[in-house]
């Protein structure tokens, strides 16, 4: 039993990444503020990168690092565009409450 605690394996990193992803997903599902939702998405992306790096370590394959680099760049681009959209929405609606932004829904 204590082996779980003292023998750190790749599985530990994978499960930690899964927990991080789950927390980010809870944030996306339950928060109403668009900015907090964006932060939760960043957490989920980070969890994905952590998973990729753990598997790269497991297989000794540097390709995972290239993928992680691409993911970090995509996260930066996504944050820029997403925050731009949030600013534009705030300009026109004076709020960023996702529960009240349903103009595309009905």
């Amino acid at each position, binding site marked *: 039993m204590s082996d779980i605690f003292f023998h750190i394996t790749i599985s530990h990193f994978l499960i930690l990444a899964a927990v991080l992803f789950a927390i980010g997903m809870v944030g996306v599902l339950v928060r109403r503020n668009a900015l907090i939702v964006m932060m939760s998405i960043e957490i989920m992306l980070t969890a994905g990168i952590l998973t990729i790096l753990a598997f790269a*370590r497991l297989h000794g394959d540097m390709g995972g690092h290239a993928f992680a680099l691409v993911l970090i760049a995509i*996260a930066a681009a996504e944050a820029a565009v997403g925050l731009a959209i949030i600013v*534009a929405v705030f300009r026109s609606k004076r709020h960023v*409450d996702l529960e009240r932004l349903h103009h595309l829904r009905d």
Partner: protein
Amino acid sequence: MIPRSGYSAIAALCGAVLVFFLAPGAAAAAESGPPAPPPGAPEGALGNTAAVALLFWVLALATVAGAVFVITRRNMVAGVMGLVFTFFAVAVLYAMLYAHFLAVLQVLVYAGAIMVLFVFVIMILNKPEDEPWALTGLVGKAIAGLALLYFLMRLGGVLWGVREKPAASGAELSPGGTIQSGDFGSLAEVGRVLFSDYVFAFEAIALILLSAVVGAITIARPGSGSSSQDADEGAAVGDGERAPDA
């Protein structure tokens, strides 16, 4: 919202976990020295010492605590600070996985650039939210929560089953056997991989960043597109930097 007593509960939990891992770990390290890795085991993430285990658990706790902090805070600046904390801890986790260069990138790009972006946007729309939780459609969310829980349990089972490569007595060598163990994750290796096998991905990054910059400017420019009428009737946000021809 976590009530005020939640902070002390979290602190107590951290303390308990620290004590739990410190005490037996120190004892084991004292009596046996660095434990020899079992034969045929893994390249393993790391040498499996008590210090490594302690480092991992502290970092895991910091990451999860920071992430929970982010999604529970009402104050957005506090949320950003929690996110920065999480990203720093995750960067150290990357380093534990021998991804030194990506750990540096994580701090530079995530904790640096992206978080500054967030802080600026929070500065622009500094508005307290009246009701932070979206407590509508509770039934659907309860079902989604249960499904998520089940999914996580199954996922945890699968992930726990991931073992180190069975036949990897050659330690960190890749199947091609080209990577010396000391080079794994180094800047030189990342550069070699990025400019040989994944050069198209590298070029795609350039395109993505360019289009993201152009798109962000186009979207957020005051007076652009269909939001111009609304922006006009809106208050002074961005009116100062409006381009004369917009």
